[in-house]
């Protein structure tokens, strides 16, 4: 495994993309930063700008308004970048499946690396999901 990837896995900066969520998943993401969960232990910090991001935490059904924006946000992030779909909405459009604003599931817009189901998922589940994808990349390389 090369040094570049090793460093990336040790310091993944997360960026939060909300694509029409009910805001509950977003609050659970913020929970991960609280003293109880403290993801800075793994070197993760919440990046303010998409240009600093290594992991995109995406929540919500991809609405008509958000689909092109999500795609653009993905394109703006410097590669390599990992995409995490958080919540039932992001995984499979959840309870808003038949909504008039729903478009396509998230993984048809951007390549999703890990799905974290739950409505909303617990902070433990989010942390477990992210660490799992890190493990997966570490093993596969």
């Amino acid at each position, binding site marked *: 495994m090369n040094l570049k*990837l090793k460093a*990336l896995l040790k310091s993944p900066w997360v960026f939060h993309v909300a694509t029409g969520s009910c805001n509950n998943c977003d609050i659970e993401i913020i929970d991960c930063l609280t*003293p109880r969960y403290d993801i800075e*232990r793994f*070197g993760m910090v919440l990046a303010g700008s998409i*240009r600093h991001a290594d992991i995109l935490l995406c929540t919500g059904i991809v609405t008509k308004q958000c689909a092109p924006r999500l795609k653009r946000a993905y394109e703006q992030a*410097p*590669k*390599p970048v990992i995409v995490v779909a958080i919540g039932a909405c992001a995984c499979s459009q959840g309870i808003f499946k038949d909504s008039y604003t729903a478009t396509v599931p998230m993984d048809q817009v951007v390549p999703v690396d890990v799905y974290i189901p739950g409505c909303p998922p617990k902070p433990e589940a989010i942390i477990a999901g992210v660490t799992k994808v890190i493990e997966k990349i570490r093993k596969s390389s």
Partner: protein
Amino acid sequence: MKNLLYFLIFPGFLFTAICGLVASWVDRKLTARLQWRVGPPWYQPFIDILKLLGKETIVPKGASKLTFLSAPLVSLASVTLVSTIVWMVDLNPSKSFVGDIIVVIYLLTIPSIGLMIGGFASRNPLASLGASREMKLILSYELPFLLAIIVPIIKTSGAIRIGELLTYQLGNGLIVKNLSGMIAFFVVIFVLQAKLSLAPFDIPEAETELMSGPIVEYSGAPLAIIKLTKAMMLFTLPIFLIVMFLGGISTDGINIVWGISKYIGLLALVSIIKNTNPRLRVDQALKFFWGPLTVLAIIAVVLACMGL
């Protein structure tokens, strides 16, 4: 050749970079502990820099490429130069040259100016807004900073060499032990906070409104350089103030422990101020610096002239 070695390895780039990254870890860990968290492991800042060097570098469309990419380098070079000058003099006061205080004061503003130029060059509205706030902040803190820096110069009857200041403090006690020195040091601590753009003066970077301000478009290696510059500033600026007010860091024998504890104390103070204060608006910061702090600095200058 030898000077290049001083600049690149000790006490220049390599030494300052390592110390700065360790200092930035201390700051992060202290922040985490103050917020009742565990915090990152000690090697985290090094890994961050390594990771950023490996990431893709994006130059935004329509940005001025040369300016955008060279602005961080200018900042890095100037902070390295400051560190080299200050440490060379601290290790050997006779190496000081006439006017090096003035050179250091000029060079200390260049990292902020580099950040500003980079922000304007990136053609991002948030970055321009951050850069203009940075400019206003520079205008506000430079006045009390210069006034406060004049105090030690008056005390040593007009020495504009850092070496002379050090030898004076060795003979006559620390500058900060006088009343005027104490007031000036108090002023300078707030300026330190603003120069490092930490809360309550992290106005240019306001990540909640401006998403990290001037550096919003930077990614990859240039971002690594900016982060490194910030870490090095966190090391260099307190050292400069220690040399000016607290008698420098002497390296003979057990004294080095005392020297290091001076630095750690100042760093902890900076970190605690950062963690216990909300962010000010830019007009409030201007009022604060040009109002109470400038008055205090003028009082310190007058007291110093009277010999207190």
